[in-house]
């Protein structure tokens, strides 16, 4: 389980996170939603150790991650699918996948990975920049999967994906959670969120303002949307 407690921090001139506490349980999809600019991406970057300043506690199955550099956090079991894909444009699909693989993936051997994301199989020798936006997004997800993460952080993975592929993505995330991965999903796409999430958290002004099960969210959806999500 990934556990954050009282996370504050942000950028040199802007404090963004004002004390975020949340748990992402193993075997569950925890969704984090919120208006543009509330600090969702900043939180993900903080968990990966990519913020210039940050305080608070981050632990993975009880072990503190806070003092570790980014690469050590990844090795400890964090997989990261960043906002905007950030694939390596000049590396081939296979090379993109290899960057995170210090050894071959236990859970995602090639056959299984390509069965899940067949488009990538046909593009395996192509450079990252030659892929379509959707293919790049799938590559970013695949690249995190093959590191066999215990926690998977996804920052708006449905961005730029066709509706069919979003459904596919929902299935993948569900499957990952069922296999015991802790999935922390930042999304704007409420349909995807409601389709896969076990818990739904809302972030506003640098804090978590709502944290409950998906059915509870649906029951109060209209009010929550009006209060925290509409512009």
């Amino acid at each position: 389980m990934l556990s954050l407690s009282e996370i504050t921090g942000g950028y040199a001139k802007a404090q963004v996170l004002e004390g975020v506490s949340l748990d992402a349980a193993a075997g569950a999809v925890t969704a984090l939603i919120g208006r543009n600019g509330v600090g969702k991406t900043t939180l993900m970057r903080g968990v990966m150790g990519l913020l210039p300043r940050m305080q608070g506690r981050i632990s993975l199955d009880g072990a503190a991650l806070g003092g570790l550099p980014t690469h050590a956090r990844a090795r400890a079991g964090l997989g990261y699918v960043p906002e905007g894909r950030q694939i390596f444009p000049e590396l081939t699909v296979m090379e993109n996948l290899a960057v995170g693989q210090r050894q071959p993936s236990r859970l995602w051997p090639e056959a299984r990975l390509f069965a899940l994301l067949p488009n990538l199989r046909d593009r395996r020798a192509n450079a990252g920049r030659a892929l379509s936006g959707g293919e790049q997004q799938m590559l970013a997800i695949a690249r995190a999967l093959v590191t066999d993460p215990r926690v998977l952080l996804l920052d708006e993975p449905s961005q730029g994906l066709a509706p069919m592929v979003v459904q596919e993505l929902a299935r993948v995330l569900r499957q990952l959670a069922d296999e015991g991965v802790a999935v922390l999903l930042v999304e704007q796409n409420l349909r995807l969120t409601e389709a896969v999430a076990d818990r739904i958290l809302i972030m506003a002004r640098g804090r978590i303002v709502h944290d409950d099960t998906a059915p509870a969210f649906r029951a109060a959806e209209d009010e929550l949307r009006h209060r925290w999500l509409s512009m």
Partner: protein
Amino acid sequence: MDPLALFTLQVLNALSLSALLFFIALGLTLIFGIMRVVNFAHGAVFMLGAYCGVAAQTATGSFAASLLAAPLAGAALGLAFERSALSRLYAREHSAFLLVTFGLALALTEAIRLIWGADARQTELPAVLAGIVFVMDEPFPVYRLLLIGAGGLCWLLCWLGLQRTRLGLLLRAASQNPTMTAALGNDVGRVRAMVFALACALAALGGALAAPLLSASLGLGSNVIIDAFVIVMIGGMGSFIGTVAGSLLVGFAQTFGNFYVPELALGMTYALMITVLVLRPGGLFGRPE
């Protein structure tokens, strides 16, 4: 003399000069690729390699020993310098990085002056390498052929290293996106240190190879770094294939310039650079940032 034979000899001369320049320019471009900064000390490391080579050969009597000692010294210096100074500067302004490498260049030059004095130093090549062969009935130094071979081998090994090894993959990944390279579990600081050390080893090896031809002297570093800059600009900052092309272009421009239009020889390199940069501002194989 037969003009065709003359031309052939000039081609071989140009190739051997290109090979020497490739050793220093390649390291410069690899460092730029992964650190986004220019290492001003690279010429001084080349010069240090020349002096270390001469010293090793004087001490052991073996030319092969000089080709071993120089890259080892270069790698050790590069590693120590990267870990102790440069690694603290990546997050800061580029100007700090430039100043520090410039400082290292000055310090190395002074250290060499203190240790080996101000006079140029040279050693004898072993008899097999000091000889000549006949190319189209004209005599040509064996050693220059060896340089061409060494340059070709260096090109091949570095290309394989970049394409086929894990370090090569991480170097390319970190050149494109260091943050994601780290977020996928790779210690980018370590990759930088290894690349810097390797680049310094290559430059020092180039210096040791150049010593029998150009002799080790205190001006060597600043002369050769300018050519290396031009090569990297022509080829496109950070591009491997561009560095190969740039080394060949500069090697040929200088050799043929010297031979056919000696009055203009000095300007040839710059004319070449300006022409390329006007036509393609990012260099021949440069990618827009």
